[in-house]
Protein backbone atom coordinates (compact mmCIF):
# COMPACT_ATOMS: atom_id res chain seq x y z
CA UNK A 1 0.00 0.00 0.00
CA UNK A 2 2.84 2.37 0.67
CA UNK A 3 3.68 2.19 -3.03
CA UNK A 4 0.31 3.73 -3.75
CA UNK A 5 0.95 6.41 -1.13
CA UNK A 6 4.10 7.45 -2.96
CA UNK A 7 2.25 7.54 -6.26
CA UNK A 8 -0.56 9.55 -4.67
CA UNK A 9 1.83 12.16 -3.37
CA UNK A 10 3.71 12.36 -6.67
CA UNK A 11 0.63 12.89 -8.72
CA UNK A 12 -0.85 15.37 -6.24
CA UNK A 13 2.37 17.36 -6.33
CA UNK A 14 2.35 17.30 -10.10
CA UNK A 15 -1.26 18.43 -10.38
CA UNK A 16 -0.86 21.22 -7.84
CA UNK A 17 2.47 22.45 -9.19
CA UNK A 18 1.17 22.67 -12.73
CA UNK A 19 -2.03 24.34 -11.55
CA UNK A 20 -4.18 21.63 -13.15
CA UNK A 21 -6.19 21.59 -9.91
CA UNK A 22 -6.69 24.20 -7.19
CA UNK A 23 -6.82 21.60 -4.43
CA UNK A 24 -7.10 17.84 -4.17
CA UNK A 25 -9.24 15.73 -1.87
CA UNK A 26 -7.63 12.58 -0.47
CA UNK A 27 -6.93 11.01 2.90
CA UNK A 28 -4.47 11.66 5.73
CA UNK A 29 -3.76 10.08 9.10
CA UNK A 30 -5.86 11.05 12.09
CA UNK A 31 -4.53 10.98 15.62
CA UNK A 32 -4.80 7.22 15.94
CA UNK A 33 -3.36 4.59 13.61
CA UNK A 34 -6.83 3.28 12.73
CA UNK A 35 -8.04 6.64 11.43
CA UNK A 36 -7.50 7.93 7.90
CA UNK A 37 -10.01 10.73 7.46
CA UNK A 38 -10.43 12.97 4.39
CA UNK A 39 -7.75 15.57 3.65
CA UNK A 40 -7.82 18.69 1.50
CA UNK A 41 -4.42 19.48 0.05
CA UNK A 42 -4.20 23.02 -1.23
CA UNK A 43 -0.52 23.29 -2.05
CA UNK A 44 2.26 21.06 -3.29
CA UNK A 45 4.14 21.64 -0.04
CA UNK A 46 1.53 19.65 1.89
CA UNK A 47 1.28 16.50 -0.24
CA UNK A 48 3.24 14.66 2.44
CA UNK A 49 0.01 14.46 4.41
CA UNK A 50 -1.62 12.16 1.87
CA UNK A 51 -1.82 8.53 2.79
CA UNK A 52 -3.29 5.35 1.35
CA UNK A 53 -3.82 2.57 3.84
CA UNK A 54 -6.49 0.15 4.97
CA UNK A 55 -8.38 2.77 6.99
CA UNK A 56 -9.22 5.13 4.16
CA UNK A 57 -12.93 4.44 4.65
CA UNK A 58 -14.54 7.85 4.23
CA UNK A 59 -16.00 8.77 0.87
CA UNK A 60 -14.50 11.78 -0.87
CA UNK A 61 -17.17 12.53 -3.48
CA UNK A 62 -19.67 14.31 -1.29
CA UNK A 63 -17.26 17.19 -0.69
CA UNK A 64 -17.63 18.20 -4.32
CA UNK A 65 -21.01 19.62 -3.35
CA UNK A 66 -19.31 22.21 -1.17
CA UNK A 67 -17.76 23.79 -4.23
CA UNK A 68 -20.21 23.49 -7.11
CA UNK A 69 -18.83 26.42 -9.09
CA UNK A 70 -15.09 26.32 -8.56
CA UNK A 71 -12.75 28.84 -10.13
CA UNK A 72 -10.31 26.14 -11.19
CA UNK A 73 -10.55 22.35 -11.16
CA UNK A 74 -10.94 20.18 -8.09
CA UNK A 75 -8.73 17.12 -7.85
CA UNK A 76 -10.15 14.07 -6.15
CA UNK A 77 -8.80 10.65 -5.31
CA UNK A 78 -11.53 8.13 -6.03
CA UNK A 79 -11.85 4.45 -5.26
CA UNK A 80 -14.57 2.33 -6.87
CA UNK A 81 -17.29 3.60 -4.56
CA UNK A 82 -16.15 7.21 -4.88
CA UNK A 83 -16.19 7.00 -8.68
CA UNK A 84 -19.76 5.75 -8.67
CA UNK A 85 -20.60 8.51 -6.20
CA UNK A 86 -19.15 11.07 -8.60
CA UNK A 87 -21.26 9.63 -11.41
CA UNK A 88 -24.26 9.85 -9.11
CA UNK A 89 -23.66 13.53 -8.46
CA UNK A 90 -23.12 14.26 -12.15
CA UNK A 91 -26.26 12.40 -13.13
CA UNK A 92 -28.29 14.17 -10.47
CA UNK A 93 -27.16 17.45 -11.97
CA UNK A 94 -25.22 18.55 -8.91
CA UNK A 95 -21.71 18.90 -10.34
CA UNK A 96 -20.04 19.23 -13.71
CA UNK A 97 -17.62 16.60 -14.95
CA UNK A 98 -15.41 19.34 -16.45
CA UNK A 99 -14.78 20.82 -12.99
CA UNK A 100 -13.12 17.76 -11.52
CA UNK A 101 -9.96 15.79 -12.14
CA UNK A 102 -10.37 12.23 -10.94
CA UNK A 103 -7.37 10.21 -9.84
CA UNK A 104 -8.62 6.66 -9.68
CA UNK A 105 -7.29 4.15 -7.15
CA UNK A 106 -8.18 0.46 -7.38
CA UNK A 107 -9.18 -0.59 -3.89
CA UNK A 108 -8.88 -4.06 -2.39
CA UNK A 109 -10.95 -3.25 0.67
CA UNK A 110 -10.65 -1.35 3.91
CA UNK A 111 -10.66 -2.42 7.55
CA UNK A 112 -13.16 -1.68 10.28
CA UNK A 113 -11.28 0.52 12.79
CA UNK A 114 -13.01 -1.11 15.77
CA UNK A 115 -12.20 -4.72 14.93
CA UNK A 116 -9.41 -4.72 12.36
CA UNK A 117 -11.39 -7.08 10.11
CA UNK A 118 -12.61 -6.21 6.63
CA UNK A 119 -15.12 -3.40 6.84
CA UNK A 120 -18.68 -4.49 6.24
CA UNK A 121 -19.17 -2.10 3.40
CA UNK A 122 -16.16 -3.57 1.62
CA UNK A 123 -17.22 -7.17 2.07
CA UNK A 124 -19.99 -6.77 -0.49
CA UNK A 125 -18.27 -4.37 -2.86
CA UNK A 126 -18.98 -5.21 -6.50
CA UNK A 127 -16.94 -2.49 -8.21
CA UNK A 128 -13.64 -1.79 -6.50
CA UNK A 129 -12.15 -0.29 -9.64
CA UNK A 130 -13.11 3.28 -10.41
CA UNK A 131 -15.29 3.29 -13.52
CA UNK A 132 -14.57 6.91 -14.30
CA UNK A 133 -11.21 8.56 -13.93
CA UNK A 134 -8.74 10.85 -15.63
CA UNK A 135 -5.75 8.81 -14.53
CA UNK A 136 -5.52 5.47 -12.78
CA UNK A 137 -3.05 4.59 -10.04
CA UNK A 138 -2.31 0.94 -9.64
CA UNK A 139 -3.58 -2.21 -11.32
CA UNK A 140 -7.20 -3.26 -11.47
CA UNK A 141 -8.47 -5.52 -8.71
CA UNK A 142 -10.61 -8.57 -9.65
CA UNK A 143 -14.34 -7.81 -9.54
CA UNK A 144 -17.03 -10.26 -8.48
CA UNK A 145 -20.77 -9.99 -8.52
CA UNK A 146 -21.40 -10.87 -4.86
CA UNK A 147 -25.00 -12.15 -4.88
CA UNK A 148 -24.49 -13.12 -1.24
CA UNK A 149 -24.99 -9.49 -0.32
CA UNK A 150 -28.73 -10.14 -0.39
CA UNK A 151 -28.54 -13.04 2.03
CA UNK A 152 -29.33 -10.98 5.14
CA UNK A 153 -32.32 -9.48 3.35
CA UNK A 154 -33.62 -12.89 2.35
CA UNK A 155 -33.36 -14.08 5.94
CA UNK A 156 -35.28 -11.08 7.19
CA UNK A 157 -37.96 -11.60 4.56
CA UNK A 158 -38.66 -15.04 5.94
CA UNK A 159 -39.72 -13.68 9.35
CA UNK A 160 -43.36 -13.07 10.20
CA UNK A 161 -44.69 -9.49 9.97
CA UNK A 162 -44.64 -9.12 13.74
CA UNK A 163 -41.07 -10.38 13.98
CA UNK A 164 -39.98 -8.04 11.22
CA UNK A 165 -41.70 -5.15 12.96
CA UNK A 166 -40.03 -6.05 16.23
CA UNK A 167 -36.64 -6.18 14.54
CA UNK A 168 -36.98 -2.78 12.94
CA UNK A 169 -38.51 -1.25 16.08
CA UNK A 170 -35.44 -2.20 18.04
CA UNK A 171 -33.24 -0.61 15.41
CA UNK A 172 -35.18 2.61 15.02
CA UNK A 173 -35.39 3.06 18.76
CA UNK A 174 -31.62 3.49 18.72
CA UNK A 175 -31.63 6.21 16.08
CA UNK A 176 -30.63 9.61 17.46
CA UNK A 177 -31.48 11.51 14.26
CA UNK A 178 -28.00 12.84 13.83
CA UNK A 179 -28.48 12.62 10.03
CA UNK A 180 -24.96 11.30 9.54
CA UNK A 181 -26.42 8.70 7.15
CA UNK A 182 -28.01 11.39 5.03
CA UNK A 183 -24.97 13.64 5.06
CA UNK A 184 -22.48 11.00 3.91
CA UNK A 185 -24.79 9.57 1.25
CA UNK A 186 -23.92 10.65 -2.32
CA UNK A 187 -27.50 9.97 -3.40
CA UNK A 188 -28.82 12.33 -0.71
CA UNK A 189 -27.96 15.57 -2.42
CA UNK A 190 -31.15 17.65 -2.27
CA UNK A 191 -30.54 21.28 -1.55
CA UNK A 192 -33.31 21.16 1.02
CA UNK A 193 -33.97 17.81 2.62
CA UNK A 194 -37.52 16.83 3.53
CA UNK A 195 -36.63 16.74 7.22
CA UNK A 196 -35.62 20.38 7.10
CA UNK A 197 -39.10 21.26 5.87
CA UNK A 198 -40.60 20.25 9.16
CA UNK A 199 -43.21 22.97 9.31
CA UNK A 200 -45.00 21.36 6.42
CA UNK A 201 -45.52 18.15 8.35
CA UNK A 202 -43.26 15.78 6.48
CA UNK A 203 -41.16 15.01 9.51
CA UNK A 204 -41.54 15.86 13.16
CA UNK A 205 -38.48 16.77 15.18
CA UNK A 206 -39.41 14.49 18.06
CA UNK A 207 -37.05 11.63 18.61
CA UNK A 208 -39.24 8.57 19.05
CA UNK A 209 -39.45 5.24 17.33
CA UNK A 210 -42.15 6.30 14.88
CA UNK A 211 -40.60 9.54 13.68
CA UNK A 212 -37.25 7.75 13.43
CA UNK A 213 -38.85 5.02 11.37
CA UNK A 214 -40.51 7.58 9.15
CA UNK A 215 -37.18 9.27 8.55
CA UNK A 216 -35.40 5.99 7.90
CA UNK A 217 -37.95 4.49 5.52
CA UNK A 218 -38.56 7.73 3.66
CA UNK A 219 -34.87 8.39 3.13
CA UNK A 220 -34.34 4.87 1.90
CA UNK A 221 -37.26 5.18 -0.49
CA UNK A 222 -36.05 8.55 -1.76
CA UNK A 223 -32.72 7.06 -2.82
CA UNK A 224 -34.12 3.64 -3.82
CA UNK A 225 -32.97 3.32 -7.40
CA UNK A 226 -30.01 5.64 -7.01
CA UNK A 227 -28.18 3.92 -4.16
CA UNK A 228 -24.64 2.97 -5.20
CA UNK A 229 -24.19 0.53 -2.31
CA UNK A 230 -21.14 2.33 -0.95
CA UNK A 231 -22.24 1.47 2.60
CA UNK A 232 -21.19 4.85 3.99
CA UNK A 233 -24.55 5.28 5.73
CA UNK A 234 -24.13 2.19 7.88
CA UNK A 235 -20.48 3.02 8.54
CA UNK A 236 -21.25 6.58 9.64
CA UNK A 237 -24.15 5.66 11.90
CA UNK A 238 -22.92 6.04 15.49
CA UNK A 239 -25.62 3.67 16.76
CA UNK A 240 -24.88 0.87 14.35
CA UNK A 241 -28.21 0.69 12.54
CA UNK A 242 -28.08 -1.88 9.71
CA UNK A 243 -29.09 0.64 7.05
CA UNK A 244 -27.74 -1.36 4.14
CA UNK A 245 -30.33 -4.02 4.93
CA UNK A 246 -32.96 -1.49 3.94
CA UNK A 247 -31.14 -0.13 0.90
CA UNK A 248 -30.32 -3.58 -0.44
CA UNK A 249 -33.92 -4.70 -0.02
CA UNK A 250 -35.03 -2.03 -2.46
CA UNK A 251 -32.15 -2.78 -4.83
CA UNK A 252 -33.03 -6.48 -4.76
CA UNK A 253 -36.67 -5.74 -5.56
CA UNK A 254 -35.76 -3.31 -8.31
CA UNK A 255 -33.49 -5.88 -9.90
CA UNK A 256 -36.16 -8.56 -9.72
CA UNK A 257 -39.07 -6.43 -10.93
CA UNK A 258 -37.49 -4.14 -13.49
CA UNK A 259 -34.51 -6.04 -14.75
CA UNK A 260 -30.84 -6.13 -13.67
CA UNK A 261 -29.73 -2.66 -12.70
CA UNK A 262 -26.78 -1.04 -11.00
CA UNK A 263 -26.88 2.62 -10.17
CA UNK A 264 -24.36 5.11 -11.53
CA UNK A 265 -22.33 2.81 -13.74
CA UNK A 266 -22.60 5.63 -16.27
CA UNK A 267 -24.24 9.02 -16.31
CA UNK A 268 -26.74 8.25 -19.06
CA UNK A 269 -28.89 5.35 -17.86
CA UNK A 270 -32.15 6.59 -16.35
CA UNK A 271 -32.85 5.03 -12.96
CA UNK A 272 -35.79 2.55 -13.04
CA UNK A 273 -38.21 4.59 -10.93
CA UNK A 274 -37.82 7.56 -13.24
CA UNK A 275 -39.08 5.62 -16.21
CA UNK A 276 -41.57 2.92 -16.98
CA UNK A 277 -42.15 -0.04 -19.24
CA UNK A 278 -45.51 -0.87 -20.79
CA UNK A 279 -44.85 -4.50 -19.96
CA UNK A 280 -44.15 -3.98 -16.26
CA UNK A 281 -45.45 -6.55 -13.80
CA UNK A 282 -49.13 -6.02 -13.20
CA UNK A 283 -50.30 -6.71 -9.64
CA UNK A 284 -52.93 -4.10 -9.21
CA UNK A 285 -55.60 -5.15 -11.63
Amino acid at each position, binding site marked *: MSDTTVKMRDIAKDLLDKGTVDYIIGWEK*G*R*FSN*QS*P*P*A*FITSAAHVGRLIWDEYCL*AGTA*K*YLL*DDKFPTGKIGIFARGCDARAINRLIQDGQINRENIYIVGICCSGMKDPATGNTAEKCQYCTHPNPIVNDILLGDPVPETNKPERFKAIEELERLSPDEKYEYWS*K*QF*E*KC*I*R*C*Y*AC*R*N*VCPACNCRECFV*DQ*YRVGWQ*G*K*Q*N*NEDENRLFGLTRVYHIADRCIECG*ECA*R*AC*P*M*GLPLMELNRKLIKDINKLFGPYEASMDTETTPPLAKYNLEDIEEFM
Partner: protein
Amino acid sequence: MKTIAKSRINEVLDILAKESKVLVPMKVNGVSKYTPWGSEGRIALEEVNTLLPPKDTLFPQTEKMYSYKMANQEITELNIHDDSAPQIIFGVRPCDMQSIKCMDDVFLTKSFVDDFYKNKREKLTTICIGCSRVAPTCFCDSMGVDPGRHEAADVQMYDLGNSYGIEAQTEAGQALLNKLQGLIQEQAGELTAVSCTLKVDTSGISDKLAKMFEHPIWKEVSRKCIGCGTCTYLCPTCYCFDMEIKNNGNEGYRFRCWDSCMFSEYSRMAGGHNPRPSKNERIRNRFLHKLEFFNERYGKNLCVGCGRCLSKCPVNVDITLFIDKIKEVAVDEPV
Protein backbone atom coordinates in the same frame (compact mmCIF):
# COMPACT_ATOMS: atom_id res chain seq x y z
CA MET B 1 -12.63 2.54 53.81
CA LYS B 2 -16.22 1.48 53.33
CA THR B 3 -16.63 -1.00 50.48
CA ILE B 4 -19.29 -3.03 48.69
CA ALA B 5 -18.44 -6.31 47.00
CA LYS B 6 -18.87 -6.13 43.22
CA SER B 7 -20.72 -9.44 43.35
CA ARG B 8 -23.46 -7.76 45.38
CA ILE B 9 -24.10 -4.82 43.10
CA ASN B 10 -27.40 -6.31 41.89
CA GLU B 11 -28.65 -6.31 45.47
CA VAL B 12 -27.56 -2.69 45.88
CA LEU B 13 -29.49 -1.70 42.79
CA ASP B 14 -32.55 -3.66 43.89
CA ILE B 15 -32.61 -1.84 47.23
CA LEU B 16 -32.19 1.55 45.62
CA ALA B 17 -34.81 0.79 42.98
CA LYS B 18 -37.49 0.27 45.63
CA GLU B 19 -37.98 3.99 46.09
CA SER B 20 -36.85 5.62 42.89
CA LYS B 21 -35.88 4.93 39.33
CA VAL B 22 -32.28 3.82 39.17
CA LEU B 23 -30.38 4.42 35.94
CA VAL B 24 -27.40 2.22 35.26
CA PRO B 25 -25.10 1.80 32.26
CA MET B 26 -26.57 -1.04 30.22
CA LYS B 27 -26.03 -2.39 26.75
CA VAL B 28 -29.34 -2.31 24.88
CA ASN B 29 -29.35 -3.57 21.28
CA GLY B 30 -25.62 -2.99 21.06
CA VAL B 31 -25.64 0.57 22.39
CA SER B 32 -24.51 1.33 25.95
CA LYS B 33 -26.57 3.98 27.71
CA TYR B 34 -28.16 4.80 31.05
CA THR B 35 -31.21 2.57 31.30
CA PRO B 36 -33.64 2.01 34.18
CA TRP B 37 -32.57 -0.92 36.34
CA GLY B 38 -35.01 -3.74 35.74
CA SER B 39 -35.35 -3.32 32.00
CA GLU B 40 -34.01 -5.71 29.41
CA GLY B 41 -30.36 -5.47 28.64
CA ARG B 42 -26.98 -6.30 30.08
CA ILE B 43 -25.44 -4.16 32.80
CA ALA B 44 -22.23 -2.66 31.42
CA LEU B 45 -20.25 -1.28 34.34
CA GLU B 46 -17.00 -2.74 33.07
CA GLU B 47 -16.93 -0.44 30.02
CA VAL B 48 -14.88 2.72 30.27
CA ASN B 49 -17.95 4.81 29.52
CA THR B 50 -21.37 4.64 27.90
CA LEU B 51 -21.85 5.66 24.30
CA LEU B 52 -24.82 7.87 25.04
CA PRO B 53 -24.13 10.46 27.74
CA PRO B 54 -26.28 10.81 30.88
CA LYS B 55 -27.59 14.26 29.92
CA ASP B 56 -30.80 12.62 28.71
CA THR B 57 -31.75 12.10 32.36
CA LEU B 58 -31.96 15.81 33.07
CA PHE B 59 -32.45 17.12 29.57
CA PRO B 60 -34.37 14.52 27.52
CA GLN B 61 -33.94 14.43 23.78
CA THR B 62 -37.63 15.11 23.38
CA GLU B 63 -39.49 16.75 26.25
CA LYS B 64 -43.14 17.81 26.30
CA MET B 65 -43.49 21.26 27.75
CA TYR B 66 -47.23 21.83 27.75
CA SER B 67 -50.29 20.38 26.12
CA TYR B 68 -53.56 22.04 25.27
CA LYS B 69 -57.11 21.36 24.11
CA MET B 70 -59.29 23.85 22.33
CA ALA B 71 -62.95 24.30 21.49
CA ASN B 72 -64.45 27.17 19.51
CA GLN B 73 -61.15 29.04 19.38
CA GLU B 74 -60.92 29.05 23.18
CA ILE B 75 -58.45 27.03 25.22
CA THR B 76 -60.32 24.55 27.39
CA GLU B 77 -57.36 22.73 28.87
CA LEU B 78 -53.75 23.72 29.39
CA ASN B 79 -51.33 21.43 31.21
CA ILE B 80 -47.75 22.32 31.91
CA HIS B 81 -45.81 19.09 32.04
CA ASP B 82 -43.72 18.06 34.95
CA ASP B 83 -42.79 14.43 34.76
CA SER B 84 -39.92 14.72 37.19
CA ALA B 85 -39.60 11.94 39.74
CA PRO B 86 -36.89 10.81 42.16
CA GLN B 87 -34.05 9.32 40.19
CA ILE B 88 -30.69 7.85 41.05
CA ILE B 89 -28.02 7.72 38.40
CA PHE B 90 -25.52 5.01 39.17
CA GLY B 91 -22.09 4.68 37.60
CA VAL B 92 -21.53 8.18 36.25
CA ARG B 93 -17.91 8.80 35.34
CA PRO B 94 -16.11 11.95 36.57
CA CYS B 95 -16.14 13.46 33.08
CA ASP B 96 -19.92 13.11 32.88
CA MET B 97 -20.26 14.48 36.44
CA GLN B 98 -18.41 17.55 35.25
CA SER B 99 -20.85 17.79 32.36
CA ILE B 100 -23.74 17.84 34.85
CA LYS B 101 -22.04 20.78 36.55
CA CYS B 102 -21.82 22.58 33.22
CA MET B 103 -25.51 21.96 32.54
CA ASP B 104 -26.34 23.21 36.04
CA ASP B 105 -24.56 26.46 35.17
CA VAL B 106 -26.56 26.84 31.99
CA PHE B 107 -30.02 25.91 33.21
CA LEU B 108 -29.96 27.11 36.82
CA THR B 109 -27.85 30.25 36.94
CA LYS B 110 -27.59 33.69 35.39
CA SER B 111 -31.05 35.11 36.03
CA PHE B 112 -33.21 32.45 34.39
CA VAL B 113 -33.97 29.11 35.99
CA ASP B 114 -35.25 26.42 33.64
CA ASP B 115 -38.01 24.71 35.58
CA PHE B 116 -38.04 21.58 33.47
CA TYR B 117 -34.37 21.03 34.25
CA LYS B 118 -34.61 22.21 37.84
CA ASN B 119 -37.41 19.84 38.77
CA LYS B 120 -35.44 16.88 37.53
CA ARG B 121 -32.14 18.07 38.97
CA GLU B 122 -33.49 18.51 42.46
CA LYS B 123 -34.74 14.95 42.47
CA LEU B 124 -31.57 13.39 41.07
CA THR B 125 -29.02 11.64 43.25
CA THR B 126 -25.68 11.02 41.60
CA ILE B 127 -23.40 8.09 42.25
CA CYS B 128 -20.03 8.56 40.58
CA ILE B 129 -17.65 5.67 39.96
CA GLY B 130 -14.05 6.76 39.45
CA CYS B 131 -12.20 5.33 36.48
CA SER B 132 -9.67 2.55 36.96
CA ARG B 133 -8.71 2.44 33.30
CA VAL B 134 -8.93 4.82 30.37
CA ALA B 135 -9.77 4.56 26.71
CA PRO B 136 -7.24 5.82 24.13
CA THR B 137 -9.68 8.61 23.33
CA CYS B 138 -10.08 9.89 26.93
CA PHE B 139 -8.45 13.22 27.77
CA CYS B 140 -10.41 14.39 30.82
CA ASP B 141 -7.36 15.21 32.93
CA SER B 142 -6.27 17.74 30.31
CA MET B 143 -9.66 19.43 30.66
CA GLY B 144 -9.49 19.89 34.43
CA VAL B 145 -11.30 16.70 35.45
CA ASP B 146 -9.83 14.15 37.87
CA PRO B 147 -10.47 10.69 36.39
CA GLY B 148 -10.54 9.17 39.88
CA ARG B 149 -13.34 11.16 41.48
CA HIS B 150 -15.64 14.19 41.31
CA GLU B 151 -16.48 16.31 44.35
CA ALA B 152 -19.96 17.23 43.10
CA ALA B 153 -21.29 13.68 43.18
CA ASP B 154 -23.59 12.72 46.05
CA VAL B 155 -21.84 9.39 46.45
CA GLN B 156 -18.33 8.63 45.25
CA MET B 157 -17.32 5.06 44.45
CA TYR B 158 -13.87 3.72 43.58
CA ASP B 159 -13.05 0.59 41.61
CA LEU B 160 -10.86 -1.55 43.87
CA GLY B 161 -10.85 -4.75 41.83
CA ASN B 162 -13.28 -7.12 43.55
CA SER B 163 -15.15 -4.41 45.35
CA TYR B 164 -16.07 -0.77 45.14
CA GLY B 165 -14.93 1.77 47.72
CA ILE B 166 -17.88 3.96 48.65
CA GLU B 167 -18.21 7.26 50.46
CA ALA B 168 -20.93 9.88 50.81
CA GLN B 169 -20.08 13.41 49.79
CA THR B 170 -23.41 15.11 50.52
CA GLU B 171 -26.37 14.64 52.83
CA ALA B 172 -28.37 13.05 50.06
CA GLY B 173 -25.49 10.67 49.52
CA GLN B 174 -25.37 9.76 53.21
CA ALA B 175 -29.11 9.07 53.21
CA LEU B 176 -28.52 6.68 50.34
CA LEU B 177 -25.69 4.92 52.12
CA ASN B 178 -27.88 4.46 55.17
CA LYS B 179 -30.19 2.33 53.05
CA LEU B 180 -27.30 0.04 52.12
CA GLN B 181 -26.02 -0.60 55.64
CA GLY B 182 -26.21 -4.39 55.41
CA LEU B 183 -24.04 -4.51 52.30
CA ILE B 184 -21.29 -2.13 53.35
CA GLN B 185 -18.12 -3.53 54.84
CA GLU B 186 -15.00 -1.93 56.25
CA GLN B 187 -11.93 -2.89 54.26
CA ALA B 188 -8.49 -1.60 53.58
CA GLY B 189 -8.38 -0.44 49.97
CA GLU B 190 -5.63 0.93 47.81
CA LEU B 191 -6.66 3.55 45.30
CA THR B 192 -4.61 3.40 42.14
CA ALA B 193 -4.41 6.71 40.38
CA VAL B 194 -5.08 6.55 36.66
CA SER B 195 -4.22 9.11 34.04
CA CYS B 196 -5.16 9.54 30.42
CA THR B 197 -2.78 8.57 27.65
CA LEU B 198 -4.07 11.31 25.38
CA LYS B 199 -2.83 14.63 26.66
CA VAL B 200 -3.54 18.07 25.33
CA ASP B 201 -2.34 21.48 26.53
CA THR B 202 -5.20 23.91 26.97
CA SER B 203 -3.36 26.61 28.88
CA GLY B 204 -4.10 30.05 27.47
CA ILE B 205 -6.32 28.66 24.77
CA SER B 206 -9.40 30.73 25.62
CA ASP B 207 -7.45 33.96 25.42
CA LYS B 208 -5.81 32.96 22.19
CA LEU B 209 -9.07 31.89 20.58
CA ALA B 210 -10.70 35.17 21.59
CA LYS B 211 -8.42 36.88 19.09
CA MET B 212 -8.95 34.36 16.28
CA PHE B 213 -12.51 34.95 15.13
CA GLU B 214 -11.48 35.94 11.60
CA HIS B 215 -8.52 33.59 11.36
CA PRO B 216 -8.19 31.43 8.21
CA ILE B 217 -7.68 28.30 10.30
CA TRP B 218 -11.43 27.73 10.49
CA LYS B 219 -11.65 26.99 6.78
CA GLU B 220 -9.00 24.33 7.03
CA VAL B 221 -10.45 22.69 10.15
CA SER B 222 -14.04 22.67 8.92
CA ARG B 223 -13.55 21.33 5.40
CA LYS B 224 -14.00 17.66 6.19
CA CYS B 225 -16.94 18.10 8.56
CA ILE B 226 -20.08 16.60 7.04
CA GLY B 227 -22.49 18.65 9.13
CA CYS B 228 -24.29 15.86 10.96
CA GLY B 229 -25.23 15.96 14.65
CA THR B 230 -23.19 13.01 15.88
CA CYS B 231 -20.75 15.07 17.95
CA THR B 232 -23.55 17.20 19.38
CA TYR B 233 -25.83 14.35 20.34
CA LEU B 234 -23.08 12.22 21.86
CA CYS B 235 -21.52 15.17 23.70
CA PRO B 236 -22.42 15.19 27.42
CA THR B 237 -22.36 18.98 27.57
CA CYS B 238 -24.13 20.10 24.40
CA TYR B 239 -27.43 21.69 25.40
CA CYS B 240 -28.90 23.56 22.44
CA PHE B 241 -32.52 22.83 21.75
CA ASP B 242 -35.37 23.69 19.42
CA MET B 243 -39.03 24.12 20.30
CA GLU B 244 -41.86 22.92 18.14
CA ILE B 245 -45.60 22.50 18.35
CA LYS B 246 -47.38 19.31 17.41
CA ASN B 247 -50.92 20.16 16.55
CA ASN B 248 -53.72 17.69 15.87
CA GLY B 249 -56.68 19.84 15.05
CA ASN B 250 -58.11 20.87 18.41
CA GLU B 251 -55.37 19.59 20.63
CA GLY B 252 -51.65 19.39 20.72
CA TYR B 253 -48.52 19.97 22.67
CA ARG B 254 -45.37 22.02 22.60
CA PHE B 255 -42.14 20.16 22.98
CA ARG B 256 -38.47 20.89 23.01
CA CYS B 257 -35.91 18.66 21.38
CA TRP B 258 -32.15 18.56 20.94
CA ASP B 259 -30.79 20.57 18.06
CA SER B 260 -27.30 20.78 16.67
CA CYS B 261 -25.40 23.87 15.60
CA MET B 262 -23.69 21.66 13.02
CA PHE B 263 -26.91 21.41 11.00
CA SER B 264 -26.98 23.92 8.17
CA GLU B 265 -30.44 25.21 9.01
CA TYR B 266 -29.79 25.57 12.74
CA SER B 267 -29.28 29.32 12.49
CA ARG B 268 -31.51 29.91 9.49
CA MET B 269 -33.97 32.67 10.21
CA ALA B 270 -37.43 33.48 8.95
CA GLY B 271 -36.88 35.08 5.58
CA GLY B 272 -34.03 32.73 4.77
CA HIS B 273 -31.02 34.62 6.08
CA ASN B 274 -28.43 32.43 7.76
CA PRO B 275 -25.63 34.11 9.74
CA ARG B 276 -23.67 30.84 9.68
CA PRO B 277 -24.03 29.95 6.03
CA SER B 278 -21.14 27.50 5.71
CA LYS B 279 -19.31 24.82 7.67
CA ASN B 280 -16.60 27.38 8.28
CA GLU B 281 -18.80 29.46 10.56
CA ARG B 282 -20.47 26.47 12.17
CA ILE B 283 -17.28 24.70 13.17
CA ARG B 284 -15.90 28.00 14.41
CA ASN B 285 -19.01 28.41 16.55
CA ARG B 286 -18.74 24.93 17.96
CA PHE B 287 -15.11 25.09 18.98
CA LEU B 288 -15.34 28.64 20.25
CA HIS B 289 -18.36 27.71 22.34
CA LYS B 290 -16.57 24.74 23.87
CA LEU B 291 -13.26 26.42 24.54
CA GLU B 292 -13.86 30.16 24.70
CA PHE B 293 -17.40 31.48 25.02
CA PHE B 294 -18.37 29.10 27.83
CA ASN B 295 -15.13 29.81 29.63
CA GLU B 296 -15.78 33.54 29.39
CA ARG B 297 -19.30 33.23 30.76
CA TYR B 298 -19.08 30.46 33.31
CA GLY B 299 -15.39 30.10 34.07
CA LYS B 300 -14.97 26.53 32.81
CA ASN B 301 -14.50 24.69 29.54
CA LEU B 302 -17.58 23.16 27.98
CA CYS B 303 -15.50 20.15 26.89
CA VAL B 304 -14.96 17.54 29.60
CA GLY B 305 -12.58 15.29 27.68
CA CYS B 306 -14.83 12.22 27.39
CA GLY B 307 -13.65 11.55 23.82
CA ARG B 308 -17.02 10.43 22.43
CA CYS B 309 -16.99 12.93 19.57
CA LEU B 310 -13.58 12.05 18.29
CA SER B 311 -14.23 8.34 18.41
CA LYS B 312 -17.60 8.45 16.63
CA CYS B 313 -17.26 11.30 14.16
CA PRO B 314 -17.58 9.68 10.70
CA VAL B 315 -14.64 11.76 9.45
CA ASN B 316 -12.64 11.98 12.68
CA VAL B 317 -12.95 15.69 13.39
CA ASP B 318 -10.79 15.82 16.50
CA ILE B 319 -10.96 18.58 19.13
CA THR B 320 -7.62 17.48 20.57
CA LEU B 321 -5.86 17.88 17.23
CA PHE B 322 -7.57 21.23 16.93
CA ILE B 323 -6.26 22.36 20.32
CA ASP B 324 -2.77 21.22 19.34
CA LYS B 325 -3.04 23.22 16.14
CA ILE B 326 -4.19 26.34 17.94
CA LYS B 327 -1.21 26.15 20.24
CA GLU B 328 1.12 26.16 17.25
CA VAL B 329 -0.52 28.79 15.12
CA ALA B 330 0.54 32.40 15.38
CA VAL B 331 -2.46 34.59 15.89
CA ASP B 332 -1.49 37.23 13.37
CA GLU B 333 -0.14 35.02 10.63
CA PRO B 334 -2.23 32.87 8.30
CA VAL B 335 -1.94 29.07 8.52
